């Protein structure tokens, strides 16, 4: 289960929002009931709300600027989603200034006195800048809340971050019922969100080159890997490999090639396609008769022996586990995982990641080759 850091200073006024956003990760109804009780209580304090929400280990809430800054600084790696409210001045922090300065200095900020002064009523900007300074990839998991999105126009720092692709404009959310829906959905699918951020590059490739179904396959594959569901992992792994190979084979536009099943022309003979086969069994010159190796020799699509061996390795291991034909229904129970060690699993994961990266470059190269041919 992923973890969330929620930074919001006006907690007593945000109970309905907390319920709406985080219900999917509260373990039981009791948390929600308790939150509703606090809502009905005349004497509600931020501490009461934080106490109730702490029953789930998935959600950390900070309502003080100094605490938020320290959590962000030391534990950002532990969170899959960080939601930051822009204005954190509800709880005065004049007594915490020394700590705040130290934290900011640790993040590499200079002239911190001036910075703190400058960022009054937009303290969230400072936390955001600190997090991006610590790790540029944090941009994927940060969502930024503001009461008035127009005010951001007066923030050149944020505009610059967005301009240089260090932050996303669509990660800045106005606090209104319709616009914060995106957060509700992310929290409901936190695991998927977290995986997509962990494998941001691979997911981006699959999303851009293929479709959302392919992204779902990949996310599910990783989820099974994380949960050590080896049977399911191996099924998804093979599916992804097959889909990538089908897609690339289609792009190669060789309908009569021998790697297509003669009986069913839409079906790719994956092994032939990957391996290429030698023209003769003992062709010492190493000339391939078909498939990716031949295409690579003609068009240089980067099909190195590493990628070829990775593809073959995945194909053969899946085959050894009992996955031969994806046209027939495969039940996880039928998959033999006796020989799959933790290391093999890791190796499979790394190999498919390599194949995805190669696949992206191969498509680019093929497009270039096609443009040259047309010219």
């Amino acid at each position, binding site marked *: 289960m992923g973890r969330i850091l929620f930074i919001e200073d006006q907690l007593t006024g945000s109970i309905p929002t907390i319920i709406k956003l985080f219900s999917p990760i509260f373990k039981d109804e009791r948390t929600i009931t308790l939150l509703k009780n606090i809502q009905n209580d005349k004497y509600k*304090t931020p501490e009461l709300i934080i106490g109730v929400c702490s029953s789930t280990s998935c959600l950390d809430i900070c309502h003080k600027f100094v605490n938020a800054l320290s959590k962000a600084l030391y534990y950002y790696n532990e969170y899959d989603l960080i939601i930051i409210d822009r204005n954190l001045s509800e709880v005065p922090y004049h007594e915490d200034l020394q700590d705040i300065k130290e934290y900011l200095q640790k993040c590499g900020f200079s002239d911190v006195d001036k910075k703190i002064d400058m960022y009054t009523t937009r303290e969230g900007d400072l936390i955001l800048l600190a997090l991006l300074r610590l790790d540029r990839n944090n941009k994927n998991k940060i969502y930024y809340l503001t009461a008035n999105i127009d005010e951001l126009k007066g923030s050149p720092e944020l505009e610059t971050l967005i301009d240089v692709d260090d932050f996303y404009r669509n990660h800045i959310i106005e606090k209104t019922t319709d616009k914060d829906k995106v957060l509700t959905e992310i929290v409901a699918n936190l695991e998927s969100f977290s995986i997509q951020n962990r494998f941001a590059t691979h997911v981006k490739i699959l999303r851009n080159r293929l479709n959302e179904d392919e992204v779902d396959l990949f996310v599910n594959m990783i989820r099974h890997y994380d949960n050590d569901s080896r049977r399911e992992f191996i099924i998804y792994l093979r599916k992804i490999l097959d889909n990538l190979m089908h897609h690339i084979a289609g792009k190669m536009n060789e309908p009569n090639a021998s790697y297509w099943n003669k009986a069913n022309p839409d079906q790719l003979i994956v092994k032939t396609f990957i391996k290429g086969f030698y023209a003769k069994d003992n062709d010492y010159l190493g000339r391939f008769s078909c498939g990716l190796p031949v295409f690579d020799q003609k068009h240089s699509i980067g099909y190195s022996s590493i990628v070829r061996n990775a593809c073959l390795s995945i194909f053969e291991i899946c085959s050894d586990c009992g996955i031969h034909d994806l046209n027939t229904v495969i039940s996880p129970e039928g998959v033999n995982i006796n020989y799959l060690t933790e290391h093999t699993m890791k190796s499979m994961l790394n190999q498919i990641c390599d194949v995805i990266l190669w696949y992206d470059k191969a498509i680019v190269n093929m497009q270039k080759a096609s443009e040259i041919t047309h010219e």
Partner: protein
Amino acid sequence: MTIFVNNNRGKTSKKDSKALAFLQYALQCKSEGRFETMLDYMDKAFKLRPDSNLLFNRAKVLDHLKEYDKALETINRAIEMDTNHSYFIFRAQLLASLHRFDDSLNSIETAIAIYDCAYYQVAKAQMMFISGRILDGIDHMLWIRDNYNHLVHTEDINFLASALQISNTYQIKIPQLEPQFNDSIISMQEPNKSQVLRWLIDTDLFADAKISINPSLMTDILSSDTLSNQEKVIFLGSIGNWAQAEQILEQHASTLEQEFYCFYKACIDLYLNKRCTADTLVDITQWNQEAKYAFIIKLWNKKHYSALQDYFELERPTTATAKWMQFWIAVLSGNLSEGILVLKEIPQGLEEIIKSGRKSNSLELEAFGQEIDVNNLTNNLRTILELFPFDLPYDMLTWEMFIKVLKKIFPVQYSNLIDLHADIVERQSVDSPTNIDNDKYKDFYVQSSMKVELINDLSMVFISGSSSHFAVSLSIVIGASRKMGDKMNNIVESSREEERNKVLSDLSHNIKNLLRSVIDPLESIKRDIPDKMPVIEDAIKGANLIREMVNSINFSYTVSVEDLIYDIHNPGKDTSCISAMITQSLRNAISNMYDSQYYPQFMSNYFKDRQAYSDSKLKWDFIGHDRDGSRLIRFAEEYLFDLTLEIDSGSELTVGNEKSSAIKLTILLQELILNAVKYASFVPLSQRKLQISLSNEPDFIRMIVSNSYKPEVRAKTTGLGNVIIKNFAKVLDCEILTEKAANMYTVTLNLKNYWSNNG
């Protein structure tokens, strides 16, 4: 001018004696002002005893007679005899008088090569400025600053005075200059000291170089027996110490010249009391021209336009300077037709003004001749800046008048050029788009931008024109551009502000209507689903809060003095007094402190735990609606803050509500008091104070809200309260003053007493 008689040869020959006798005759002629004869005697003396120093003196006489070519020839002969550095410096002065600036600079360089002293270095910088090499001059002054400790004879008063003046003009701070200037004069011996001081006072250097006089030098000057009381008054005036000038003036009134006394008395009145009485204006008409000029310039600089206007009625302006003043005063008072008549009478160009400018007081003039046009750059600029400050109302002139003013200022040969450019600008402006939609401001904006455009077009022509007009052009170009630029920005801002206010006002009205459609259903749901009552109540409270805020904004834009006066004089049934409004506002503010939903921080500041909250809330529910002020004070002291309420005088001040004045005033008071209650919460209970006082004075109703606060705390705010308060203050013409003491924050509201006849 001094003639030096060299007599260093112990024994004097016959020839020497004769030569000496001729020199004595020459001196005699000098004292009688017979310079031609003096030169003859000097020539005879030279024939008998050739001496470079004698040639040096001869050159000085010729310089005095403005015969620069002959003087140059003479000093060249002196240099042939003796390569003395002071001859080269004098030669540089003569060359500058002949506008041979490069040669002049070379001569200074030669002097420096022979004798590298601080004064010659600053003379080099001066020459660079004079010859128009401003950047080189600045560079050289920076070099002087960086090498100050290696310069020779920095204690030389000529160096110090020149360097101070330049460094002040060009804003080049040389830290050693001022202390050394002070020390150098203090350490001088009499009579030299008095001579130097007199020279500095006469040349107004203390004022021009803006020197800080250290206390020892001040004592030295004021206790000097050799300086007259008149000189002391001039000195004090030049450094702006008018209080002490007044003391000396009054102390020695009987011994001072009457005209001097009157002039300085009027100056002191102007600077210390910021006034110029009708009697003074009558007096001025009796003064000499120089004093008149000096004083009206002071009146002009201090912007005493009405006094000047009165003076011009007593004595018609005759000088160009006075006429220009009369013109601008007419423009400022909106009397453009009179302005046009005055403008016609003003002589073309500014030559007369520059000539009438105060006497040269700059050392560079002393050093480099008084008749050099470019030499007068600083002086011209000063004179012109005095008459044409940057903030003249160029924006109030019509386009046609603006063109006339430009044509009047610059020499007549520029007239066609100005017309030509004006025509181009006018034609271009027809097609150029503006970013002003508001018709009220559009024409004004277009005209302002045309003026700026014209000035921009002409600026290079003016500035690169004759050297005497460089300063004028610079002043007018900068002044007009700045003024018009400001005006254009103001127009844009005013237009936008009006637009924004309208949008805000319309929007708040719409929101108010929309909120009704939210609150009404919520009320009925509350009745239908009693289980959800607390949640729905919170929602209703939130919606009501928004409605109050929107109401406040709306009212702050719609309030008017006329409505207030109407409701004061027609109280009707629905009337309240100011004291009741204050206590009600205080009650509302305290109630808000129990609201953990919308004021959680303040609630937790006031009530550290649930027990404290519950105890206090129980009592508050009991006395919250109580009209007894003393119980409110006791409650506040026990749970919230030390409360002082001195508002009894407000019970007589009643306001009706027919035009919503009672509600509007309550909103204003509520904003002020809520702020105080909120910010006091950050202070520990034992030190928390809130004081509200109201005084009913003949002209004003003064309300003071004072609360303890922690200066370092910045609580979250939308800033809306301030907007509302400022809007009210603006429309009701009431003054709001804030004062931050160490632990107390005080807001004073001065509202005109519309209840009294005075109001």
